C-alpha cells in the first residue's frame, strides 16, 4: 500500500496495491490506522485502482477505517473501484454510507 498526505487540505490518500483478503488485510489495517492517527486527516480516500482481488475482508476493512476516521473527526471516501470491488461493495450496502469519489 502506498500513502500520501496533502498538508494543505488535510487529505490522506491510501493506494492499495495488494490483493485484499483475510491474510493481507491485517497489515493494511495496521498501517492505515497508524497513519490516520498520526496525520488526523479531514478526509481519507482509499484508491482501489491497483486492487486485483478483493473478497469480503475488504468490506470489514473499509467499515472499520470509516469508523476510525470518524471517531477522530475525519471523513472517508473510496475511489477507482474495479468491477469486482464495486460488486462486493454494492452487495454489502456500504456505498449508502461511504461516497465514491474521483481522484
Amino acid at each position, binding site marked *: 500500500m502506498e500513502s500520501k498526505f496533502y498538508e494543505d487540505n488535510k487529505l490522506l490518500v491510501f493506494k492499495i496495491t495488494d490483493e485484499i483478503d*483475510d*491474510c493481507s488485510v491485517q497489515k493494511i489495517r495496521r498501517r492505515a490506522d497508524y497513519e490516520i492517527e498520526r496525520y488526523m486527516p479531514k478526509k481519507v480516500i482509499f484508491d482501489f485502482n491497483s486492487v486485483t*482481488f*478483493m*473478497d*469480503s475482508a475488504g468490506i470489514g476493512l473499509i467499515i472499520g477505517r470509516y469508523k476510525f476516521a470518524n471517531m477522530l473527526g475525519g471523513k472517508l471516501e473510496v475511489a477507482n473501484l474495479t*468491477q*469486482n470491488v464495486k460488486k*462486493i461493495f454494492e*452487495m454489502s450496502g456500504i456505498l449508502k454510507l461511504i461516497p465514491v469519489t474521483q481522484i
Partner: protein
Amino acid sequence: MKERIENEMKLEFASKATNESFARITVAAFASQLDPTIEELADIKTAVSEAVTNCIIHAYENKQGTIKINAQLKENQIIIQISDNGKGIENVDIAKEPLYTTKPNLERSGMGFTIMESFMDSMKVESIVGLGTKVTLIKTIKKQEEKEKEDEIVSLTKE
C-alpha cells in the same frame, strides 16, 4: 464446436491464511479450461476465497486443520466442494443470512455466504456440529457462441 471433456482435481492443504490465495488461484487455473471470461473467473476466485477463509477462521479458529477442495468440470459447469473437519455450524439457515457473523470483533461483515451465493449459480452448505462443514458451489460458464450472441444483442440495442 470444441468438445467439453470431463475433468477432476483434488487439493488438500493446511488451514493457514497464506494458503487463501494459493487455493483460489489453483481453482481458477483449473476452471480456465472452460474458457471463462475475466469476470466469471473473478467470481469463482472470490467465492473460493470466501469458503476457504471461513474454514480457517470459523471452522478451525486459526488452529491446525486440513482443508479439502474437490473440483469437477462437467460439460460447461464447474462444481467445487470445499470441506473442513472443524467445529461445524449449528444453524445453517441463520449463518447464511446477510450480515450474520459470529466474529464481528474481527471486522468480519457476515457477507461471505451472500457473496458465494450471488457470484455462483448455486451454493449448498452441509454441516454437522463437531464434525465439519462442506460447501458445494456450482457455476455454469457460458459457451463462446452464447457470449458472442449476447454481445451482438447488446451492440444491436445500442444502435
